């Protein structure tokens, strides 16, 4: 495995920020588009979104070295607008308060929440834009890196956004089930959403891998590492089978057997989506290789 300057903390951040943004979008979609029975999911998504992004951002700060020991240095993080990290800091700084406010409004937590409830549509509109920015930015962050040709493609933010949406919906469903297990029957209504997001993710992932094969020598070597090389057992087992195929089939069954599927399978499919989303990011980070120099 090639050495990367970034490790599990950055992988966790990419995953948690994506899942938090996805949870926000799924909560807004449920609140606006679906009828009353979806309120439990909207509530769960709104409540987990902000905390997830905050934990992700904490991973990012823990990964800093001088900026962690001397936190006042973090004030310099917005000095270079050519840097995607600068944009990330701005996007996260805007998204986190909006996501927390949305959680407070939907959960009617304290007087702030009750006050914010009057403007919930505004929060939903602004927050959705920021959520898509957060999810897409995690992909752009690594897509602009010259040092790793495998990441250097516009498909990267598309793939990460698709994965963010499916992991966000999955984590909202798990939260809704934990909150009130009786709502699990109504969760079958969202199986179709899962099917759509997982299908998009699968198509983009296939495009990403196939196009990397011919993009450059280094990208092809990274892609081969996933498909048939040292990381291939993890790629096929964790990402393709557990993260895409099994939850895809389970969601289709769930959709047709409305409310009849065992609870463990409904929640299990969601957990698998999370495992797949985390593994996808880890494998993409750890399979990155620098250009051949000599």
């Amino acid at each position: 495995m090639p050495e990367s300057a970034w490790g599990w903390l950055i992988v966790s951040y990419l995953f948690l920020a994506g899942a938090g943004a996805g949870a926000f979008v799924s909560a807004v979609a449920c609140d606006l588009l679906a009828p009353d029975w979806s309120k439990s999911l909207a509530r769960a998504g709104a409540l987990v979104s902000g905390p997830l992004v905050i934990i992700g951002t904490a991973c990012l700060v823990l990964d800093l070295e001088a900026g962690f020991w001397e936190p006042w240095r973090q004030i310099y993080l917005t000095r270079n607008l050519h840097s995607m990290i600068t944009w990330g800091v701005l996007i996260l700084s805007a998204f986190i308060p909006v996501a927390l406010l949305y959680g407070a409004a939907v959960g009617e937590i304290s007087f702030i929440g009750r006050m914010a409830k009057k403007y919930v549509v505004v929060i939903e509109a602004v927050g959705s834009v920021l959520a898509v920015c957060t999810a897409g930015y995690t992909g752009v962050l690594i897509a602009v890196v010259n040092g790793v040709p495998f990441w250097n493609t516009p498909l990267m933010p598309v793939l990460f956004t698709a994965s963010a949406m499916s992991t966000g919906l999955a984590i909202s469903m798990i939260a809704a089930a934990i909150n009130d297990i009786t709502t699990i029957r109504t969760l079958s209504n969202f199986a179709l959403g899962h099917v759509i997001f997982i299908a998009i993710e699968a198509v983009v992932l296939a495009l990403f891998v196939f196009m990397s094969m011919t993009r450059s020598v280094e990208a092809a070597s990274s892609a081969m590492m996933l498909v048939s090389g040292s990381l291939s057992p993890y790629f096929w087992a964790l990402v393709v089978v557990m993260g895409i195929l099994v939850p895809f089939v389970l969601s289709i069954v769930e959709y047709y057997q409305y409310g009849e599927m065992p609870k463990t399978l409904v929640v299990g499919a969601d957990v698998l989506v999370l495992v797949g989303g985390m593994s996808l990011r880890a494998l993409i980070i750890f399979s990155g290789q620098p250009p051949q120099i000599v």
Partner: protein
Amino acid sequence: MPRYGIAIDTTKCIGCNACRVACQNQNNLEPKGEFNKIVEKDRGVFPSFSKEFVPLQCNHCGQAPCQRVCPTGATYTAPEGVVLVNEKLCVGCKYCIEACPYKMRTIDHRSGVVVKCKMCIEMVREGGVPACVSTCPTQVRIFGDLDDPYSEISRFVAKHRAQPLRADLNTGPQIYYKRS
């Protein structure tokens, strides 16, 4: 203002690593830390086979990717065309390490900031040459001003058609190689 660069003649390199050790001493690096290194490259197939030693270091790119991605602006280009790190601004996010196609940056865990080849700029400003250049027993490296057509380095680059490594990456490297 000069535009400093280094020309490297790999046909003279014997792989003794004196440049690496001189650099570590000069910059007070940890034993594992390195601003330059020598990689061995196999050329050709038997019976026309040879081994090439290629000394690598920061290319002090004219359009440095590390500088573009640095969120704090800690990485900057000195007027002499040397890419430097302002250690007071660096937060240690390591984005520059990922962005560098030549993988020539490293993090100093003692101070938590990213460090790199400075082309020994303090010595150079006092009229000296970088430690890796002066220490080399076979005089592989030539240091000088690439904007002065009469400098030793410019004449060497022109005479041997020396090329940077992976110029196709469009980062404008300032280290030139004569490789055959």
